[in-house]
C-alpha cells in the first residue's frame, strides 16, 4: 500500500482538485442562495442532477458540448426562477425552516420527473470528443477533461467574482445579503434580487452537473449523496462565504482523493470526519463569522 510514488501522489492530487472544483461550484451556488435568502436549498443536489441529465441529452441532441454549456445553466436557472417565485417566496415570512422543507419536497419531485422523462436507469455519459485524451503534466498523464474542469471552474469563479465585486448588480447582491432593508430603501425591488440570486444559484448547480456528467454515472439518484457532501463543504468553508466555498470545496475534494489513495472506499467517510473535526474546533467554518453558527 505504501508504494505511492511522488508521481502518483501528484496525479491523485490533481484528481482531487478536479473533484474539488465540482464541490466548489456546488457550494458557491448553495452559499449564494443562503447568503442572500437565508434559505438552505435542499434541492441543490437535485438541480445538479437535472443539469447532468439535460446536459447529456442536449449533447446527444445538438452534438455540441459548448452549446450545452450555455443552454443547461439557462434551463436549470429558469426552473429555479419558477420555483423561487411560486414555491419558495410565499414562505419567507414564516420561519426559517419552511423554505428548507419545501426544497426538500422539491428534490423528490425533481428526481421523479427525471425518472419519468429519462427512465430510471439514467443516461450513458461520455466525455465530449474535443476533450478526450490525456495531457502529460511532467509527473504523469492526466485526463484532458479533468484539466478542462479545473480551468472551467476557475473561469466561472472568476466571472462570478467580477460580477459580484465589480458590477452594479453584484453590489446590490452584496448589499442585500447584509441588509435587506437598505436595499429596499434604495428603491430596489428586493424580491427581484432574491429571484435572480436563486436562479443564479440553481444555474450554477446545473452547470456543475453538466460539467461533472462525463466523470460519473448519470442517474436520478446522483444528486442525493452530493447534497450531503456539499453541506460538508459549506460547513467547512463557512456558510454564506464564497471564498470559503471555493477553498473548502478544493480541500474536501483533495481530502477525498488522497484518502482514496491510501484507504480506498473510505473517501466519503473521510470528508464527513473532516466536517466533524471542523465543527469541534471552529464551528463557523474557516471563513465564516463567529456567532453565525452558534
Amino acid at each position, binding site marked *: 500500500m505504501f508504494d505511492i510514488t511522488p508521481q502518483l501522489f501528484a496525479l491523485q492530487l490533481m484528481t482531487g482538485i478536479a473533484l474539488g472544483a465540482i464541490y466548489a461550484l456546488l457550494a458557491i451556488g448553495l452559499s449564494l442562495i443562503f447568503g442572500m435568502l437565508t434559505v438552505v436549498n435542499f434541492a441543490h443536489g437535485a438541480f445538479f442532477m437535472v443539469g447532468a441529465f439535460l446536459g447529456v441529452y442536449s449533447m446527444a441532441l445538438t452534438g455540441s458540448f459548448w452549446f450545452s454549456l450555455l443552454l443547461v445553466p439557462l434551463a436549470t436557472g429558469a426552473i429555479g426562477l419558477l420555483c423561487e417565485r411560486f414555491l419558495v417566496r410565499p414562505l419567507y415570512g414564516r420561519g426559517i425552516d419552511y423554505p428548507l422543507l419545501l426544497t426538500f419536497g422539491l428534490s423528490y419531485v425533481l428526481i421523479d420527473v427525471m425518472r419519468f422523462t429519462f427512465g430510471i436507469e439514467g443516461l450513458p455519459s461520455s466525455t465530449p470528443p474535443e476533450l478526450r485524451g490525456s495531457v502529460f503534466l511532467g509527473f504523469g498523464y492526466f485526463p484532458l477533461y479533468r484539466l478542462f474542469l479545473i480551468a472551467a471552474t476557475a473561469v466561472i469563479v472568476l466571472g462570478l467574482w467580477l460580477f459580484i465585486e465589480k458590477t452594479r448588480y453584484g453590489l446590490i447582491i452584496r448589499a442585500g445579503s447584509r441588509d435587506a432593508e437598505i436595499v429596499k430603501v434604495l428603491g430596489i425591488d428586493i424580491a427581484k434580487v432574491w429571484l435572480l440570486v436563486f436562479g443564479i444559484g440553481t444555474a450554477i448547480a446545473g452547470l456543475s452537473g453538466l460539467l461533472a456528467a462525463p466523470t460519473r454515472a448519470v442517474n436520478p439518484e446522483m444528486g442525493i449523496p452530493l447534497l450531503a457532501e456539499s453541506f460538508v463543504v459549506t460547513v467547512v468553508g463557512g456558510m454564506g462565504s464564497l471564498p470559503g466555498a471555493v477553498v473548502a470545496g478544493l480541500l474536501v475534494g483533495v481530502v477525498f482523493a488522497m484518502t482514496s489513495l491510501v484507504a480506498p472506499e473510505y473517501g466519503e467517510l473521510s470528508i464527513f470526519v473532516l466536517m466533524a473535526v471542523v*465543527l*469541534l474546533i471552529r464551528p463557523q467554518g474557516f471563513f465564516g463569522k463567529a456567532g453565525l453558527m*452558534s
Partner: protein
Amino acid sequence: MKKFLVSALVFARGHRVATALLFLLIFPFLMPYDALSVNILIFGLYAVGFNLLFGYTGMLSFGHAAFLGVGSYLAGISVVSAGWPWWAAIGVGVASSCLAGLIIGFLAIRTRGIYFSMVTLALAQIVYYIFYKSERWTGGENGLRGVKVEAIELPGIRIDFLNPLNKYYVILVFVALALWFVSRVLNSPFGAVIEAIRENEKRAAACGYNVARAKLLVFVLSAGICGLAGALRALHLSVVPIDSLHYLQSGQAVMMCLLGGMGTFFGPFVGAAVFLLLEDVVTNLTRYWMGVVGLVFMFFVLFFPKGIWGTLLYQLDRWQNRQGKAL
C-alpha cells in the same frame, strides 16, 4: 354531530395517552391488512421520537435516521451475532441509540437553526457510511439478515411472533410505554423548560437554565425513542436494510411529522398513518411515489403547515374561543 366531535377532541386532549391507546387497540381492525398496521405503529413511534425534538423544541434534525438505524442494527446484531433474546436486543437498541444521540447531539448543538439541520444530516451520513463499510457486522449494502424472532416466550405464554396481529399487540406494549413516557416528560418541570427554550432561548438562559444541556437531554430522549422504533422494526422485518440510516429516511420522519401536525401529541401517528396509507395506495397505481409524496409534502408546507391533526386542533381552539366570547 359537531358537538360530539368537539367533546371527543377535548377529551382526547385531556387524556392523551389513554385516548391514543384506545385508538391503537382497535386500529388493526380499521386497516386493510395487519402488516400495514405494524408498520404504522413502528413509524408512528419513530415520528413521535422525532416530534419530541422538532415539534416541542423547534430543532429541525435531518439526521434522525441515524437513531432509527442504530437501534435497528444494534438490536439485530445482538440477535444475530450474540444470540441474545428479543428483550435484551430491544434494550441494546435503545441504549445504543441514546449513546449515538449523545455524541451526535453534542456536536450538532454547537450550531443552531438551519446549520443544525445541515449538520445533523451530515453527521448521520457518517453513521451511514460506518455501518455500510462494516460488512462483517452489518452485511453492508445488503443489510443485516436473519434477525429471527419467532416466538415471544413469557412465563406461562408463548406468543407466535410470526402472526402479524400478535406482532402488532406485542409492539403496542412498547409503544404504549413510550407514549406514556413522552407524555410524562412533556408535563414535567423539564417539559416546561423546553417549552420556555422554544419560546425564547435568551429569556430561558436569563432565568438560569443551561439551554445547551437541556437541548442535549431532549436530543438524547428523542434518539432513544427513535432507537426503540428501530429495534422493534428489526424484530418485525427480520432484516435491517442499509437505507434505514440514509438521510432520506430522516426526511421521512420530517414529512410524517409535518403531515400529521408538529408539536402535537397525536400528530406524529396521524402523519405516519396518512403517509404509509398513501404510499400503499399510490405505489399500486404508479411507480412515481417519490414525486407524489414530494408534491403532497410541498402542498402541506405551503398551505397546511400545521398538518392534519394540528389544523383540527387549531380549528377547535378557534371554535372554543368564539364560544367563550359568546357567553
